[in-house]
C-alpha cells in the first residue's frame, strides 16, 4: 500500500525525530492539525490513520508510511459533522475544533451505520469524545452538533450563515493561528529558563552550532540579573529547525549564584524568611495580576498590604468582636481556600517575528492587538506605523495574553539577530509554568446577622498567593455584595519565589464568591432560612433581584430534594450570586471602507473566541438593513483603527456601539452621493450596491459614544473606564455525589446573567456555557501543584493539570435578563467575567446540600470528598 494523505499519494516521512503532527504541519503545510498539549491528552492533533482516530503528537511520523492519513483538511468541509459544528456554534476560539471534528466524523459515521439516524445520548457522545478538551468550554454546542449530525440533519445542508461568521474557517482547519504562520525560512526560537528558585545570573555562555560557531542568543532577563522562580526566562536561542534549537537551548550554560529562596506560603511568612523583594524599587516593579491598578499599600517582609476598603469599618469590627465574645450563634466566621488555576489556553503563547525595511512584522497570539502595537513600538523605539502586529485568530487567552511576553521579546530580538523570521511557541510545560494563572487565596469571612436576620456586619480578610506577583482584590470585591451594612475588607499579598500570576477571567471574583457564598449559605442554615430567601432579603441589586424571581419559579430550584439524603449517590442543588463592574474602552473605533465595490469593517480588535468578529459584522449589517454576508470583517491587525482589548468584559460594549456609529456615518456619507439611500431603516439591496459602486475608497470611522449620566471614573491610559451599574449573575447548580468513590458529577446548571441587551444570543450563550465549564474545573479538578522543596511546578502537562472534559459538565441553560443598562449605548455590557464568578461557589453549596458536609478548600478532589458525607 502507498503512503497517502487526504486521498493523494504522498512521499514517505523520513525524519525519525518528527512526530506525525509535526510532519503534517511543517513538511506538508497541513496546519489544521494542532499541537496543543504534546502528550496525547487534549485531542487537538487527532488525525485518521487508516480510518482510526489517532493522537498524532505521540505518533512517530514514520508510522504514517504505507498508511492512509486523513486530516481535517481532508474532510473537505462537507462532512455533516463540520456543518453541524458550525450551525450549533460548537466552538469558540476554534483551536480544538479540528481535532473534535475529525474524531466526531468517525463516531457519527460509525454510529449511523450501526443505529441508523437516531441521536445518541450525552454519555455516549462523551465516551466517543473523551479524548478531547475544549478550554473555552463549548461542550453544550458540541453535544447538540454531534447529536444532530447523527440524526442526519446536516447531510446536504451547505454551510451557510452559521451563528458565528468565522465558524466555516474553524471547522475546516483554514483558520490560521499564530503558530500556523509558515513563512519560508522561518527559524525556531527556544527559551532558556531558570532551574533555581532564586539566584543571581552571573553569566550566560552561548551554545555552539554544529558548524562550530557561537549560536545566536538573546537576553531576556533585564537589569537586576536576578531570577526569582524556577522556569523564569533568562535567554533565548534560535536555529533553522526545532530539534536543533532545542539542542542549542539545552547546551546554553547559565552560571548561577543561588540565593536563599521561599517556595511556600508558610516559609515566606516566617520572620526570618529570605525576602523576595528587598528594595522599594524592586517592590514597585513587582508584576501585578489585577485587571485594574491595585491600591497603594505598605509591605512587611514578604507580605504586602493590607489594602482596606469599607464603610463604617469601626462599627463593623466592634460588632464582630462583641459577637465573638458572646459566642453569638448568628456569627459565621470561617476560612476558605482556593489554589492556582492556570489559564492554559489551548493555543499556547506564540510569536512569529520578522524585520523588513525597518518595519517589524509580528504575528502574536494576543488579546490586545492595538495596545500591544503601542507597547511594541515603544519597546523597540519604532514609529507606530512601522509595527505590524497581526492576530487574525487567537486560540483562547482568558487574561494571559495581554502583554509583551517573553516569547514575543525572544522572537523579535532573535529575528533581528539572525535576519530571518523566528517563531517562538511555548511548549505546554512552559505554558503551564510561566504563562499566567489565577493565584490561590486564603480568605477569612465573618458575617453577623441580627435577631431580625438582617446583615449587621461583614468582614473579609484575604491573602493572595501569586508567587512573585501582587494585586489580590478578593476582599475588595466582597465589599460590592449584599447591601450597605457596616463592613471592612482587607486584601493582602504574600510573595514567594514562584511564577507570577496574571489576571484571569474575573480576577478575584471566583475565589471571592467561593468564600462569601459558602458563608452566606452557612448563615441561611443558622437562620433556618431558605438560601434564596436570605439572598432576596440581603441583596439590593435590582438585576440580581430580577434573577432571584426567576430562580424561585425554576423547577430545578423549586422541586429540589429536601431533607437529609442517604445512600451512595446523593443529589444536591445549590446557588450563588455574583456581580462584576461594568467596564468600557472609550477609545473603541470601527472603520468602514468601500473596497472593490464591497464594504469592509476594520478595527484593531481581536476575536479570542468571544464572537466579536461576528458581532461587528452583525451590528453594521443590522443598522444598514443589509445581510452580514455582504460585508467582510477584518480584525486582528494593529495597523487598523484602535480596537478594544479583550479584557475586562469591555469588548462588545465598546466595539458594538462604535460599529453602529460607523454604520450611521457611512449612511450619511453615502447619502451625499446617492440620495436614494434612505435616511433611516433598511437600505434596499440594489440601492446599497449602486451607492457603494459610486463610493469606492470611501472611509468613515465610528466611535464609542458616551453613556448617559457619564462614567464613574476618568478614562485611564489603558483604555479602561468604569461605567455606572454592576453586571449580575445567579447560578443554580445540581450535582450528584458518589459518596463511595468521592466523585461529584454536576448534572444540571441554570445560569442567569444580567448584562443588559445581548448583541448575539448564540455566541453570548456559548460564552456563558463555557464559564460554567471553567467554573466546574475550578471547583473540582484544576489545581497547579508544586514541589514544596524546590518550587518546581509538577503539574506541567494536561495529564497532571486537569481540565474538565465532555463528561464532566452539567446540562446548562442560560437565561439573560436584558434590562437595566438603557443608559449605555447599545443597551448592553460585557458578560465574559460576571458569568464566571459564581459557578464554583454554587457547586460548593450544591455539594453541601447533597452531603451535609461543608467544604472549605478547593478543588473538591476525591480525597477530600470521600470522608465528607453525613
Amino acid at each position, binding site marked *: 500500500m502507498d503512503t497517502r494523505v487526504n486521498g493523494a499519494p504522498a512521499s514517505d516521512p523520513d525524519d525519525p525525530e518528527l512526530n506525525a503532527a509535526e510532519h503534517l504541519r511543517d513538511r506538508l503545510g497541513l496546519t489544521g492539525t494542532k499541537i496543543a498539549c504534546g502528550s496525547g491528552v487534549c485531542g487537538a492533533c487527532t488525525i485518521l490513520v487508516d480510518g482510526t482516530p489517532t493522537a498524532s503528537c505521540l505518533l*512517530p511520523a514514520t*508510522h504514517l508510511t504505507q498508511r492512509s492519513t486523513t486530516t481535517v483538511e481532508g474532510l473537505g468541509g462537507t462532512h455533516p459533522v463540520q456543518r453541524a459544528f458550525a450551525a450549533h456554534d460548537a466552538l469558540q476560539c476554534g483551536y480544538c475544533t479540528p481535532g473534535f471534528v475529525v474524531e466526531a466524523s468517525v463516531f457519527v459515521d460509525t454510529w449511523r451505520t450501526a443505529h441508523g439516524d437516531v441521536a445518541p445520548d450525552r454519555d455516549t457522545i462523551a465516551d466517543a469524545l473523551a479524548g478531547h478538551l475544549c478550554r473555552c468550554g463549548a461542550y453544550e454546542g458540541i453535544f447538540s452538533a454531534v447529536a444532530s449530525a447523527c440524526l442526519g440533519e446536516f447531510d446536504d445542508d451547505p454551510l451557510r450563515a452559521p451563528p458565528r461568521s468565522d465558524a466555516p474557517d474553524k471547522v475546516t482547519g483554514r483558520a490560521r493561528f499564530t503558530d500556523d504562520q509558515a513563512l519560508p525560512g522561518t527559524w525556531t526560537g527556544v527559551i532558556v529558563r531558570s532551574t533555581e528558585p532564586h539566584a543571581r545570573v552571573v553569566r550566560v555562555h552561548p551554545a555552539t552550532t554544529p558548524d562550530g560557531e557561537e549560536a545566536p542568543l538573546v537576553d531576556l532577563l533585564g537589569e537586576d540579573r536576578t531570577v526569582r522562580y524556577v522556569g523564569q526566562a533568562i535567554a533565548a536561542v534560535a536555529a533553522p529547525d526545532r530539534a536543533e534549537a532545542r539542542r542549542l537551548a539545552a547546551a546554553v550554560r547559565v552560571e548561577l549564584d543561588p540565593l536563599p529562596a521561599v517556595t511556600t506560603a508558610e516559609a515566606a511568612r516566617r520572620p526570618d524568611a529570605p525576602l523576595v523583594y528587598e528594595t522599594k524599587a524592586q517592590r514597585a516593579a513587582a508584576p501585578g495580576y489585577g485587571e485594574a491598578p491595585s491600591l497603594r499599600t505598605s509591605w512587611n517582609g514578604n507580605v504586602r498590604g493590607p489594602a482596606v476598603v469599607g464603610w463604617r469599618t469601626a462599627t463593623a469590627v466592634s460588632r464582630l468582636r462583641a459577637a465573638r465574645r458572646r459566642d453569638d450563634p448568628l456569627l459565621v466566621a470561617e476560612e476558605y481556600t482556593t489554589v492556582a488555576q492556570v489559564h492554559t489556553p489551548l493555543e499556547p503563547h506564540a510569536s512569529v517575528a520578522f524585520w523588513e525595511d525597518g518595519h517589524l512584522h509580528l504575528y502574536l497570539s494576543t488579546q490586545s492587538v492595538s495596545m500591544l502595537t503601542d507597547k511594541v513600538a515603544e519597546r523597540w523605539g519604532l514609529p507606530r506605523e512601522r509595527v505590524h502586529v497581526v492576530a487574525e485568530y487567537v486560540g483562547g487567552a482568558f487574561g494571559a495574553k495581554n502583554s509583551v511576553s517573553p516569547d514575543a521579546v525572544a522572537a523579535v530580538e532573535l529575528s533581528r539577530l539572525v535576519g530571518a523570521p523566528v517563531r517562538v511557541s511555548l511548549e505546554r510545560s512552559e505554558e503551564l509554568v510561566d504563562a499566567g494563572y489565577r493565584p490561590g487565596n486564603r480568605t477569612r469571612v465573618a458575617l453577623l446577622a441580627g435577631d431580625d436576620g438582617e446583615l449587621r456586619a461583614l468582614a473579609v480578610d484575604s491573602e493572595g498567593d501569586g508567587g512573585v506577583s501582587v494585586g489580590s482584590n478578593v476582599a475588595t470585591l466582597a465589599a460590592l455584595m449584599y447591601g450597605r451594612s457596616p463592613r471592612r475588607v482587607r486584601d493582602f499579598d504574600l510573595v514567594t519565589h514562584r511564577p507570577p500570576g496574571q489576571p484571569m477571567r474575573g480576577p478575584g471574583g471566583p475565589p471571592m464568591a467561593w468564600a462569601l457564598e459558602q458563608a452566606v449559605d452557612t448563615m441561611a442554615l443558622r437562620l433556618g432560612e431558605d438560601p434564596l430567601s436570605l439572598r432576596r432579603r440581603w441583596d439590593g441589586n435590582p438585576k440580581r433581584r430580577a434573577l432571584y424571581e426567576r430562580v424561585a419559579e425554576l423547577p430545578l430550584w423549586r422541586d429540589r430534594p429536601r431533607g437529609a439524603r442517604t445512600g451512595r449517590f446523593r443529589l444536591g442543588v445549590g446557588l450563588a450570586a455574583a456581580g462584576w463592574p461594568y467596564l468600557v474602552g472609550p477609545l473603541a473605533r470601527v472603520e468602514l471602507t468601500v473596497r472593490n465595490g464591497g464594504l469592509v469593517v476594520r478595527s484593531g480588535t481581536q476575536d479570542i473566541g468571544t464572537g466579536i468578529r461576528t458581532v461587528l459584522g452583525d451590528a453594521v449589517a443590522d443598522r444598514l438593513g443589509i445581510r452580514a454576508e455582504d460585508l467582510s470583517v477584518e480584525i486582528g491587525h494593529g495597523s487598523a483603527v484602535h480596537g478594544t482589548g479583550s479584557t475586562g468584559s469591555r469588548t462588545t460594549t465598546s466595539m458594538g456601539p462604535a460599529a453602529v456609529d460607523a454604520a450611521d456615518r457611512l449612511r450619511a456619507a453615502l447619502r451625499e452621493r446617492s440620495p436614494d439611500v434612505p435616511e433611516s431603516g433598511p437600505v434596499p439591496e440594489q440601492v446599497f450596491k449602486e451607492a457603494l459602486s459610486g463610493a469606492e475608497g470611501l472611509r468613515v470611522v465610528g466611535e464609542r459614544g458616551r453613556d448617559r449620566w457619564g462614567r464613574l471614573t476618568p478614562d485611564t491610559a489603558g483604555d479602561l473606564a468604569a461605567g455606572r451599574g454592576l453586571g449580575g449573575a445567579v447560578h443554580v447548580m445540581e450535582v450528584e455525589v458518589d459518596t463511595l468513590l468521592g466523585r461529584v458529577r454536576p448534572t444540571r446548571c441554570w445560569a442567569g446573567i444580567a448584562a443588559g441587551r445581548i448583541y448575539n444570543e448564540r455566541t453570548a450563550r456559548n460564552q456563558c456555557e463555557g464559564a460554567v465549564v471553567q467554573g466546574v474545573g475550578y471547583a473540582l479538578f484544576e489545581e497547579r501543584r508544586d514541589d514544596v522543596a524546590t518550587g518546581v511546578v509538577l503539574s506541567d502537562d494536561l495529564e497532571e493539570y486537569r481540565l474538565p472534559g465532555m463528561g464532566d459538565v452539567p446540562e446548562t441553560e442560560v437565561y439573560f435578563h436584558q434590562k437595566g443598562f438603557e443608559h449605555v449605548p447599545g443597551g448592553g455590557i460585557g458578560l465574559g467575567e460576571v458569568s464566571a464568578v459564581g459557578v464554583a461557589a454554587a457547586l460548593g453549596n450544591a455539594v453541601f446540600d447533597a452531603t451535609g458536609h461543608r467544604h472549605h478548600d478547593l478543588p473538591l478532589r476525591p480525597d477530600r470528598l470521600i470522608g465528607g458525607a453525613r
Partner: protein
Amino acid sequence: MTVTRPTSVAEVTADLAREGVRARAGGTDLSACLETGVIAPGPLVDLLDVPGLDGVTWNADGSARVGAMTTVATVAADPRLATAYPALAATARALATPQVRGVATVGGNLLQRNRCAYLRNPAFDCFQTGGDTCPARTGDHLRGVVVDQGPCAAPHPSSLAMAFLVYEATAHLERASATALPVADLYDGTDPTRDHVLDARSLMTAVELPVPVAGERAAYRRATGRSRAEWPLVEAVVRVECADGGRGPVERAAVAVGGVARTPLRLEALAETLVGAEPGRDLPVRVTEALSDLADLCSPLPATGYKVPLLQGTVRDVVETVLGITGR
C-alpha cells in the same frame, strides 16, 4: 536517532542484542518519555512490520493468544474476547482515550513507564533515572501508593496487567533466559529502578489466556476525579464463575486492583469470601468483613490515606456490580 523496521522476530532480536537499542510498539508512551527526558534518545526498532505480533489468535482449546502488537482498541472491541474474557474487555474499554487506544498496544501497555510527575519532570532525579532518592515520598505523592512495597512510591500504570492477573495470563517472550513468564512475574514491587523486570533485549510477543469459562461475569471500575480519560486513583476488576450457567452462587472468583501499589495486586483472601455469594442478594457478612480488612493490606504514605476507603469502595463497587446488587 536511527530507526530500523525489521520484518521478522529474528531480525528484531538481533537488533535488540546491540547496546542501547530499544523496541518501539505504538510509540505513545515512548514518544512521551523521549519528549520529557525519561528516556535518552537512542536507536529504535519499530515492531510495526513484524508479522505474527498483531491480532488475536484462537487456540484449538478455545483459549486466546493476544499478540503484543494488538491495539488496546482491538481488545476493547473484539466481540469474541468480550464474551470469553469480559474482565479484560471491560478494562481495555476504560483506559486512556479513543485516539490513544487506537495505536497503543497490549505489549506497550504492560511494559510502559509509570506516571509519577517527578519521573516525568526533567528537574528531578529519582531511582528510575539513576538517582538514589524518591522525591515524591518527601514531596507531592497524592496519587502515590497506599500499599508500600519499596522505595519507589509510584503505582503501576498498567490496567491491562491488572486484568491479566485475574486470568493468570502468561506473557510470551523472545529472550535467552525464558520464553514465558506469568504476567504477575513481569513486575517486582521492591525494585525502584524500573517498572518491569524485562531487560532491553527481551521482546514480548504475545499474552496467552487460559481456556475461557462459559457464563463468566465480570466488572471493572476506576476511581477518578473526572468521569473519563484519567489515570485511576484506584481501579479494580473482578471475575466470577457462577453455578447454573451464571445464575447460581459464585463458584470461583478472582479480584485484582491497581493504582495502589508498585505492581497490580490480586486480592486472594477477598476473592475466597465471594465463593458462595448469590447474585442479587445482600453481600454476605464475610465479604463486607473482607472489604474492611483491605485496610490491613494498606500502609499509606502521609497523603495517600484516602486511598484506603477508596480501595474499599472501589472493590465494593465491582463486587456489587458483578453480583447485580444495586443501591445502598
